[in-house]
């Protein structure tokens, strides 16, 4: 298989290549420890045994405390995103001007903000937009990354080198900075946010998919498909794709955590979800300057909300990764 390696890296010692692959994940805490799992062996698995593997994976997941805790927290925030407006005690956008900057009390569990809005209600409803934008961006990135990675890994040669260089160039910048640059240039909107994060993630995911495809492409079933004179598209999407779904799925869950990280960060910087929509990052940005005045509840509760959501998603991603690699 070594003959099938891309042309641009023949003299690079393998150890250095690892360092390059790692560096992709560096400014990308969400990608922690994501090594593309080996799936080659499963290629010839019969359908029935694949189903058994899937059931076994699910059983392993349901026994992992990290997964269960993560799933419970995520479920809570999904409920808040869907029905938050129904069960929030107050309106998240309309404030009571007589009750601004009130500390937590029986009436306002998390206190009120500088406009007299109930912080508890804003935290509940604040789950909505981030849970729309982040998964959509991740989905877009996964679809794009899969397509790019398949083409790169399957054709190799100049196509692969060219795309590889662009990926390298974009990844020389932290994801937040790339997103920042484009969002500032194109203008802030939810659609831009999804597209920009989706594009950057697409490039990141393409790397993992490419590596997985490289492991598949030397196997016999690909040679058999070529002998049957199948089209390239058929081999890529019908033969190879089902066998690299594992790493792609892991990549999706890991990226989701980082998408939430990125959206929250951009919102905090004022280039993400826009007011008056309740959003955790924006609320923290609006209140942290007044921390000196002692209004800690205005930032602490949204901060804990973000922290619990990203940690939950990462616990889930980590458990899924561990199970799939086994």
């Amino acid at each position: 298989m070594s003959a099938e390696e891309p042309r641009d890296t023949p003299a690079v010692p393998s150890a250095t290549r690892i360092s390059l692959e790692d560096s992709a994940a560096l400014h990308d805490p969400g990608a922690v420890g994501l090594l593309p799992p080996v799936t080659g062996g499963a290629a010839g698995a019969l359908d029935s045994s694949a189903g058994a593997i899937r059931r076994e994976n699910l059983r392993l997941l349901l026994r992992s405390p990290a997964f269960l805790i993560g799933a419970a927290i995520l479920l809570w925030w999904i409920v808040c995103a869907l029905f938050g407006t129904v069960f929030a005690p107050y309106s998240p956008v309309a404030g009571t001007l007589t009750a601004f900057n009130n500390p937590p009390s029986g009436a306002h569990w998390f206190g009120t903000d500088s406009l007299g809005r109930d912080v508890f209600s804003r935290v509940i409803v604040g789950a909505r937009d981030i849970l729309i934008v982040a998964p959509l961006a991740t989905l877009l990135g996964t679809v794009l990354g899969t397509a790019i990675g398949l083409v790169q890994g399957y054709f190799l040669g100049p196509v692969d080198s060219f795309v590889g260089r662009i990926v390298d160039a974009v990844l020389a910048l932290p994801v937040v900075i790339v997103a920042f640059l484009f969002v500032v240039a194109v203008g802030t909107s939810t659609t831009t946010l999804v597209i920009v994060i989706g594009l950057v993630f697409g490039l990141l995911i393409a790397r993992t998919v490419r590596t997985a495809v490289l492991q598949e492409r030397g196997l016999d079933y690909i040679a058999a498909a070529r002998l049957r004179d199948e089209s390239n598209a058929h081999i890529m999407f019908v033969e190879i794709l089902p066998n690299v779904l594992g790493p792609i799925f892991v990549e999706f869950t890991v990226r989701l955590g980082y998408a939430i990280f990125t959206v929250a960060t951009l919102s905090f910087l004022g280039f993400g979800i826009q007011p008056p929509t309740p959003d955790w990052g924006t609320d923290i940005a609006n209140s942290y300057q007044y921390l000196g005045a002692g209004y800690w509840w205005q930032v602490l509760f949204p901060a804990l909300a973000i922290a619990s959501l990203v940690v939950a998603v990462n616990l889930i991603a980590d458990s899924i990764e561990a199970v799939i690699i086994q």
Partner: protein
Amino acid sequence: MTQYLLKRLGLALLTLVLLSFIIFFAGSILPGNPGRAILGPFASQHAVEVLNHSIGADRPLISQYWTWVTGIVHGDLGTSYQFRAPVSTFLFPALGRSLKLAAVAFVIVVPLSILGGVLAALYRGRAIDRSISVTGLSLTSVPEFVSGVVLIVIFAIGLKWLPVTANPPAGTSPLGQLRYLILPAIPLVFVLFGYIARMARAGTIEALDSDYVRTAILKGLPRSVVIRRHVLRNSLLPTITVIATQTGYLIGGLVVVETLFNYPGLGRLIFTAANNKDFPMLEAGVLVIGIVYLGATLIADILYTILNPRIRFQQAD
């Protein structure tokens, strides 16, 4: 080895050129009308056109790019729209301050995360390992501004141990200045900790499972000697490369931390430039981040080549 290093340098330069393309054209997608952006909505159309002509904004994009790039090669980073002064007079002092903050974060995180990773590996599968791994994963996944505000609430406002801002009053001693950088450095430490610790753990486990460590144990070497002489030397090699390349991430994370703590570094410079649509400043700032990252990656590669005798001797043949 020289040939290999030259190849790496060439690749890095190629990436840099591509990067400069991407940054310049991203900055030119829709900056609207630079003249209008500078002069504001009330300036006359004629004044806007004159200004656009004088800064070259009415020329074709590719010729603007050429001017920009040749300027940078000659050390001219362009003129800031918001300050009407050379970008470099703001950029380099800011970069210096950012590097200072990054250095503080590094000094804290490197020993801590290596210790954590090696400990986790030595107690693989046990409670220590699991708690270090889960803590690392959680800390790594939380955005810097989130951990930052929580830290401010606890240590600056609640306990009053550390200052809220990163800016010491004039005349503070160097050691006193350091005290102002600790709180801003911790969110960066959090994000880096999980990643470096995980690499150190993986490297250590790989070394522990190797044949040469088994041989060392079987020939009766004390455990501490095996770990020091055989495990650590091999396991820390990949970790060193990872640490070197983290510089890129650090500079990125600084945008958030510097904004939060009001620290006048490169991150906040970029943030302000973005808010003011000061594209020359923004583009130069982002390009500098890219250069720092590519430089750090290159140094990491060189370091790895020097430290790894297998590559060193293989290439020397």
